[in-house]
């Protein structure tokens, strides 16, 4: 590789990363605003304007950043930055609209699984480093919730990759492969049911991953006063807020990539920039629908669970549903009868 192409490549990476970060943050905040507005309307309230999350972040950034006396300052300040960076880096591996991911050929689903743990882990570290009993309880709970949802999440991803491996060769964990071969087109009736079950599991893992009601035990406002985040203020809190916003986009994009990777442009016969625009708009629509179903609707409709109930929900019913989905996909691979579409 010559120096010129190397520098060109580096330039692409830097600009791409910055663009992805800006895209993730802005989109995340917009969707946070939409989520709040829709939730408010469901609860018969007016709700804040959609730009409210932007104002919140702007306000937080000019506020004082307090580090508690018995906190470990470097760890306490590092955790939010690590969380945000890890979350944004996932965006570099996820396909957005018709665009291929920036690092599409360098990472796969397994890497994304690992990267998804880092923001939660950063919050745990930050919680333990704040030296508050509420944050400690919150950090313990976050770890337990993490352990609970990882299993059904892993089942979903493995099941999809495994089914894909019986259709195409190559790295089945690679998102490019998954997006190029939507499973819905390649399975029979059993596989179809299995995929629906897996989709349900992934939709229910999302609120756990994002610490939303009913799985918001690590932050539980009325119980432990914000838990992990109780001691955070100013810039650090804003960073965690942004992490949460970007993570919402990431989880939504993951569901879209695994289950709804379709694009409008081939259907409309478009190409070039117009195709990209249409695909991104369609992607935003899909993201909107996915976030409404996996975050807003659930958090408006139920009460917060207790920690043991969270573990039970993830380990018993959701794991079972995931396993049934896996078995159905396996049976489908044995006796593959295409549905004709």
């Amino acid at each position, binding site marked *: 590789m010559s120096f010129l192409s190397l520098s060109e490549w580096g330039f692409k990476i830097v600009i791409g990363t910055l663009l992805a970060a800006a895209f993730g943050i802005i989109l995340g905040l917009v969707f946070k605003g939409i989520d709040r507005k829709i939730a408010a309307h469901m609860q018969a309230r007016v709700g804040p304007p959609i730009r409210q999350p932007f104002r919140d972040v702007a306000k937080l950034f000019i506020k004082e950043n307090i580090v508690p006396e018995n906190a470990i300052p470097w760890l306490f300040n590092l955790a939010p930055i690590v969380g945000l960076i890890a979350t944004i880096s996932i965006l570099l591996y996820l396909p957005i609209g018709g665009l291929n991911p920036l690092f599409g050929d360098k990472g796969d689903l397994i890497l994304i699984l690992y990267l998804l743990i880092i923001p939660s882990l950063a919050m745990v570290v930050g919680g333990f480093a704040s030296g508050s009993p509420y944050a400690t309880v919150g950090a313990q709970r976050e770890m337990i919730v993490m352990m609970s949802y990882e299993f059904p999440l892993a089942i979903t991803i493995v099941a999809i990759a495994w089914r894909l491996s019986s259709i195409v060769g190559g790295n089945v964990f690679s998102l490019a492969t998954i997006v190029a071969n939507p499973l819905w087109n390649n399975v029979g009736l059993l596989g179809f049911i299995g995929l629906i079950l897996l989709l349900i599991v992934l939709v229910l893992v999302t609120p756990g991953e994002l610490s939303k009601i009913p799985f918001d035990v690590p932050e539980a406002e009325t119980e432990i006063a914000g838990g992990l985040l109780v001691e955070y203020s100013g810039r650090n809190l804003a960073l965690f807020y942004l992490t949460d916003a970007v993570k919402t986009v990431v989880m939504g994009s993951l569901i879209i990539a695994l289950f709804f990777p379709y694009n409008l442009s081939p259907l409309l016969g478009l190409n070039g920039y117009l195709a990209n625009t249409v695909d991104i708009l369609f992607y935003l629509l899909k993201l909107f629908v996915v976030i409404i179903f996996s975050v807003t609707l659930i958090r408006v409709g139920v009460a917060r669970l207790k*920690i043991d109930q969270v573990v039970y929900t993830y380990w018993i019913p959701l794991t079972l549903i995931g396993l049934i989905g896996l078995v159905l996909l396996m049976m489908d691979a044995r006796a593959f009868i295409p549905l004709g579409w």
Partner: protein
Amino acid sequence: MKTTYTLPIGPIHPALKEPVMFEFEIDGEKIVNVDVKAGQVHRGIEWIGTQRNPIQILYLAERICGICNISHPFAYCRAVENIADIEVPEKAEYIRVIIAELERIHSHILWAGVAAHEVGFDSVLYLSWRLRENVMDLIEYLTGNRVTKAMFTIGGVRRDITKDQYPKIENTIKYYRENMGKLKHVFLDDKTFKLRCRDCGILTKDNALKLCAVGPTTRASGVKKDVRVDQAYSAYGDLDIDYITPDILTGEVKGDVYDRIVVRLLEVEQSLDLIEQCLDRMPTSGNIAVEEKIPKLLATLKKVEGEGIGRHEAPRGEVIHYVKLTGEEHPYTWKVRAPTYNNILPWIPMLLGEQIADIPIVAASTDPCLSCTNRVAIVENGKKNILTGEDLHRLSVEKTRRLMRK
């Protein structure tokens, strides 16, 4: 080796609507020990009362509690009427009951919203507080105010409820008859509510009796205790009223948070019945107060001597006011015992063995009203002290000796 850690909840905490201090000893997520420290909102109300005349105290009594702003004047008026032997006109008694029951409706629905918020179900908080608006509007229509209603006076009430106001009251009753089903469905049939409230914060009948719990808290444990029935005062004697216990609806008494929700929701329906009965039986004419001219009433009260007790079943339980008048302008003593005072100790058996996640809903399940309750705070040299049983015994021995020496 098992290690526990302390988790302070309070004095200011999002789970608590008013300041109170819990010190928990926690093992993992389980509560092993709990200590309750009240006294953070002591306002010296009783002392202020003894600097004022009996009519002025009426307004002070209303401001003991924002939600029970009828219960306290009700009990206070009954205490003073008890001393002065004042017979309240029949119509006034009915109006008193109507207003008191309207207060119960709004208080219980308000509580339902708070309970929903404590378990993280904010949609239900908004739903129930929206339902509550209707009764608040009615209260405003009848009394002129949403909160401090200034409806009571010694020997009667200050505003009449006339025949042409009946339709609005009936409309509200109809509105709640139609909508209580919805609220009951949300609270009693919702799966996540059941998960959080069933078998959580259990107060056994034994403990409820031993710790003298009052109000819906004790009735949810199966203890049949309700001042309105036990000592039918005011117009309650003429009305068809019975104890509300959870077995009426569910067929069993568990004494958990869920049962407390059941009791409160049933009591709202009972209050609707009571108001309807009052409207049926209330005389259409007659005085609403024995003496409408306040200076004249005050002159009578200044001459009276003696002590009296007034009891009333507030939404949270029995409230007792004790007043001693000595023929002077200011009362010698005015003692208030709010229902939450009795419901503090039952918190301990309810909370022991539960999880951290249960603290907010269990604490809220007795519907605590702490600024009503806080009567004493011992402050010496800028430090707050807590008197133990031994201290109290020593102090009383000292006082007895002092009295004997005189």
